């Protein structure tokens, strides 16, 4: 009888091991399988092609009010920025100038990024408090201020991957570095032809913090 119990226990153990190893093919058997509900709660990113965009929609017309309520205090009534908080629109045509203005509408290559960032991180200090519709409305309002869509354009999960941003083709890939003169590890060691004239001193700029 004991032998039979022992046999059954051993058999159960073999089945148990078989279930956890071969069925999963996991090397360490650590961690838990995530449920679809758990993943859905945290998987909030939106990709340029619109993958991940949550169901919802909004227009610039409807977005003006929510923008004024939760964005304007830091970013200005027209996205022009306030104090040291960044402007959100403007700067078109400035990227090749001495003082480029890199805003969401002049520089950012994808509308999806604006949605993704606002939903996950804004308003500053109240992350993920906006509804999906509110987020679409705010993005639509910014795109409207940047002359990228019309005021009554209905921005949604269906078309956010198709918005053509002005600086879409403004980025270079792949990384070309190392991009400096290659001296094969043997740079000049003596009597090198370099200018040693001092043309600027940080002390004269006088913006360095000092200990109290």
């Amino acid at each position, binding site marked *: 009888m004991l032998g039979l119990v022992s046999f059954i226990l051993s058999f159960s153990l073999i089945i148990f091991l078989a279930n956890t190893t071969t069925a999963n*093919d996991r*090397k*360490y*058997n*650590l961690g838990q*399988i*995530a449920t679809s509900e758990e*993943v859905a709660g945290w*998987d909030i*990113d939106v*990709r340029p092609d619109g993958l991940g965009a949550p169901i919802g929609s909004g227009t610039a017309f409807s977005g003006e009010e929510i923008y004024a309520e939760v964005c304007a205090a*830091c970013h200005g009534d027209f996205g022009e920025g306030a104090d*040291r*908080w*960044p402007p959100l629109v403007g700067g078109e045509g400035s*990227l*090749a100038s*001495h003082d*480029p203005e*890199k805003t*969401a509408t002049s*520089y*950012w*290559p*994808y509308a*999806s990024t604006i949605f*993704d*960032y606002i939903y*996950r*991180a804004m308003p*500053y*200090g109240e*992350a*993920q408090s906006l509804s999906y519709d509110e987020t679409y409305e705010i993005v639509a309002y910014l795109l409207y201020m940047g002359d990228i869509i019309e005021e009554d354009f209905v921005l949604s999960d269906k078309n956010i991957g198709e918005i053509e941003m002005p600086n879409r083709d403004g*980025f*270079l890939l792949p*990384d*070309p*570095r*190392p991009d*400096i*003169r290659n*001296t094969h*590890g043997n740079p000049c*060691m*003596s*009597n*090198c032809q*370099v*200018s040693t004239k*001092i*043309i600027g*001193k*940080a*002390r004269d*700029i006088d*913006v*360095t*913090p000092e200990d*109290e």
Partner: protein
Amino acid sequence: MKKNKKNDLSNFKKLNRRDLLIGASSIGAFSLAPKNLLSEEVNPENLPPNLPEWTQYLGDGVDVNPYGMPSEFEGHVIRRNVEWLTASAESSVNFTPLQDLEGIVTPNGLCFERHHGGVSVINPQDFRLMINGLVDREMIFTLDDLKRFPQTNKFYFLECAANGGMEWRGSQLNGCQYTFGMVHNVQYTGVKLSDLLLETGLKEKAKWVLAEGSDSSGMTRSIPIEKILDDCIIAWAMNGEALRPEQGYPARLVVPGWEGNMWVKWIRRLEFGDKPYMTREETSKYTDLLTSGKARMFTWVMDAKSVITSPSPEKPILAKGLHQLRGLAWSGRGKIKRVDVSIDGGKNWKTAQLHSPVLSKSLTRFTFPFEWNGEELLLQSRAIDETNYVQPTIGELQKIRGVNSIYHNNSIATWLVSKNGKVDNVRLG
């Protein structure tokens, strides 16, 4: 009191050094004010042939400081920030005091901070790492789960891509700390992602990872899968103890040799996909604008760089004679092979001594002895890594990239030593 040298506990309180100091009304001289007390006057009473108080009386017992802190005379060795740089301290940066550090290990409390939504406070019991997307099994790991995997212990530098970003147009900040201090170097303990991913499996189409933080900025970066499987780590410890809250407690991503922004702190999720996610950080930030108006994207590697930490604007030369020039060098492409030093603004160079250990993608310490006799010097250092990459001048970088790229300024800096021993950050041209 002088004769009371019994080492029994009944006398301990009486002989506590702090009590003695209060009794002598001299506590003001030992305040924690962040000043370099080396520059304060010495007390001749403590010098030979006299007997200093600390030689005669008992000091603090054990457990006065259950977690030890630096000497009160080191109060000037702190992280510092530049307030005008940012709109809010919760989305800001401060700088490692490289000029006061020795060797290659950055003490945990001095590692520079860069936050985008403040420091998250996370009970490790509530920590979860989710792995989803193009994997065979979408999974969730606790911190205890992670610690049961095979572990790795590695030294790596972490440098913000914007380190030196204020110096593109000219010398702006007069300090080693402010111009080079967005770098730190610690030993990480964690699990290699190549091990962790054996649990989830990977779909063939998985080419990119979205790493996501659980802080209030929801920090996100896309990382190619080759890098993830090569040497990336989920780390829970630095320099032998748990990560500091400001460095991502209880767990962060380690992306050796690549820009610090990718080392997502307070990590909560890794999503696998077939394309990059083009997050805010890798499009609107951390792209390098050229004079053409086009910007380089996905410039991840931190190229070779070096800095003379002393003498430096914070470390003037105080006496004529022999000095040890000290500095740090590092490269995101591997080991440092050589560091050259110039005292005449780059006309003539001599090779400095590298100190072991010389590790891949880690800070490397160098020194160079020199005599100073009160003359003006133009100090420079130049790193060469094992790929034979030579640290460039700012002129070489500007010629190719202009002055608006903000990130990846790995150029040679110049410290002017004046005849009075003061040191200035200057630009040559």
